[in-house]
């Protein structure tokens, strides 16, 4: 903790611009920031903006709907990461609207903490189909790829909803260059765990192409504060580069073995992000060689074009804007009112990596009406 304190002192000793907005990509970053109370410790002017790195939050509504229908109609054992179970889809109250409700209605839905558990469950029930609903970023996709490369039981298939993180940030930055627009942040804290797999170099485009100070950080106070310091120093000195404040874990080039497994098992294509739309080159899919394990091929497509608000956010929910860093969680009109952890409306209030959930859990109780404050984008 001394190291974190030292970084904090160094930040406090710097001249601080009147407004300096740093986006942190990961839900893990946001958790650390909120749990350490970093916002209250940093000099006025520094704004920390939660970014798009919450896999549960960006998982398309139609994918969750598909998982629910597979569990209910196809009588499979549906396994998913725990956070995924409570995310609601749009639909009438009379029908199960989350995997948790599907389980209560009799479906066999089980939370898992790792791909190994999905394999174990499939192996323990050889006569029954098990579908692993795998949502996540590169950090989750690498172990899923390893699992498939190693070989899985015949009765296990994957409903893949994997996403790459950098294309979402690239989209934000590209949008910010359109006429009349500006990026909603002045510097970026890039994801440490993703960089551990893919290599920090993936983030070079942010300083290189867009001239924004960038630093890779892990989920510890010291690493995050070092990254904040680096961003401020870069802005101050005008020497903009990709710094690595997680260098003892995220090595140059990342983890070549994990990358080779990802290449072997998965392809990358355009993919939908919940409430945001299609982002080019941001989605993982299974290589044809692993098609036999693809739940989308093994089971019927359960999408229902007649369904109201299929694929959309719930009415009034501003999760998409929160994920894009356009508003703070408590600027959503539903935050703390209709939407709370015990009755979440949007995915950001469900996941422990969702900004709304993190803000609520660490004590932010006051909803801010969108009219009464300036949004993150327009000061």
């Amino acid at each position, binding site marked *: 903790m001394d190291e974190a304190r030292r970084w904090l002192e160094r930040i406090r000793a710097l001249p601080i611009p009147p407004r300096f907005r740093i986006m942190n990509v990961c839900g*893990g970053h946001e958790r650390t920031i909120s749990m350490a109370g970093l916002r209250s410790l940093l000099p006025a002017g520094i704004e920390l903006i939660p970014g798009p790195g919450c*896999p549960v939050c960006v998982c398309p509504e139609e994918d969750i709907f598909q998982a629910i229908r597979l569990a209910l109609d196809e009588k499979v054992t549906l396994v998913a990461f725990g956070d995924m179970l409570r995310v609601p889809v749009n639909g009438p109250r009379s029908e199960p609207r989350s995997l948790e409700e599907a389980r209560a209605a009799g479906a066999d839905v089980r939370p898992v903490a790792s791909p190994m558990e999905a394999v174990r469950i499939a192996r323990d029930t050889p006569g029954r189909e098990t579908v692993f609903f795998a949502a996540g*970023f590169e950090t989750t996709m690498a172990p899923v790829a390893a699992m498939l490369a190693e070989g899985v039981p015949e009765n296990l298939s994957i409903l893949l909803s994997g996403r790459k993180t950098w294309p979402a940030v690239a989209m934000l930055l590209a949008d910010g260059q359109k006429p009349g627009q500006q990026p909603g942040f002045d510097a970026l804290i890039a994801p440490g765990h993703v960089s551990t797999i893919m290599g920090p170099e993936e983030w070079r485009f942010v300083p290189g192409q867009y001239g924004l100070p960038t630093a890779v950080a892990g989920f510890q106070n010291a690493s995050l504060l070092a990254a904040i310091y680096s961003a401020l120093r870069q802005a101050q000195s005008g020497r903009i580069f990709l710094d690595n404040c997680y260098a003892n874990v995220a090595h140059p080039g990342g983890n070549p073995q994990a990358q080779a497994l990802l290449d072997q098992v998965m392809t990358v294509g355009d993919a939908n992000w919940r409430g945001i739309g299609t982002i080019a080159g941001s989605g993982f899919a299974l290589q044809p060689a692993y098609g036999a394990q693809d739940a989308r091929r093994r089971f019927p497509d359960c999408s229902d074009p007649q369904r109201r608000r299929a694929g959309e956010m719930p009415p009034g929910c501003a999760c998409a804007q929160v994920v894009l860093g356009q508003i703070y969680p408590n600027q959503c009109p539903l935050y703390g009112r209709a939407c709370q952890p015990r009755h979440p409306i949007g995915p950001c209030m469900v996941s422990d990596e969702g900004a709304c959930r993190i803000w609520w859990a660490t004590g932010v109780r006051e909803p801010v009406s969108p009219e009464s404050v300036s949004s993150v984008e327009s000061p």
Partner: protein
Amino acid sequence: MHDDRYIQLAHGNGGRRMRELIASLFVRHFGDSLNTQRDAAPLPDISGDLMITTDSFTVNPLEFPGGNIGSLAVHGTLNDLAVAGAEPRYLTVNALIEEGFEIARLDRLIASLGDTAREAGVAIVAGDTKVVARGEGGGLYLVTTGIGTRVPRLNLGLEHIEPGDRLLVSGPIGDHGIAVMLAREQFGLSGSLTSDAACVLPLTRALHALPGLRFMRDPTRGGLATVTHEIREATGYGMSLEESAVPVRAPVKAVCEMLGYDPYYLACEGRVVAVVSEQDAEKALALWRALPQGADAAIIGTIDHKTGPVVLTTSLGGQRVLDELEDDPLPRIC
């Protein structure tokens, strides 16, 4: 019975197999206090205010570093009596065993239960066994009920808590939660961390003589944060905790950092949280620290003078609210 290696439904049918199982396993480990020929047991040598508590145990895995479901079923119930200001005397045990359970394993777990009760000086006076069909149970469930007597002149309760009182914890938090999690091997992590599961009687007895002792509780499921919320709910007062004062072992910190857990919500099975008057807080701390079980005890916070949340001042000097536990803690996937 001697020929059987696994529990069958017949071990619960009231006939020969059940009789032999009880005699050769339960009675052997529980000792003379258990008289299986009676439908109800008298409780001899007991006087004063009687206190009773009951608890069910469904831990997975059944054996973990530092304990097992047998020892846990004794500690859990005795600890509830101990923190309520009672001296435990008698215990009853119900065992719900799943068909197919290995008898050698059952023997090991029930032996541990018997040994733990003996060490704590309580007698097992009544019990029951049931066998449930394969697939209908988690191997072994235990239910224990404890009977004790209130320590004379000791009157503990949430209603005695006053603003300015101090919160103490008897040792590092979260060891049990993380030890059990590691034992499940869900995350490909392993470690040498041992559960803190233990009888807290030495800790609770140590504070009996302090006039400023208001309230004690053992933080189990839901951890330290949940105890603070029970206090807040009952008293209406907010609370201020100091993160740097709360003892957390390095391996617990490391796993929490890795998986995104918050140690304040992790289960303990051998710790006590005490609320003590400001005057007596240092004395209580010294009494605990003099015990091997309390070597890492600490004063971790203060009861506020007004209503409000449980506020944690982080080791960096920031502040955050320690909210009530909503769902089970989950590992991060990012």
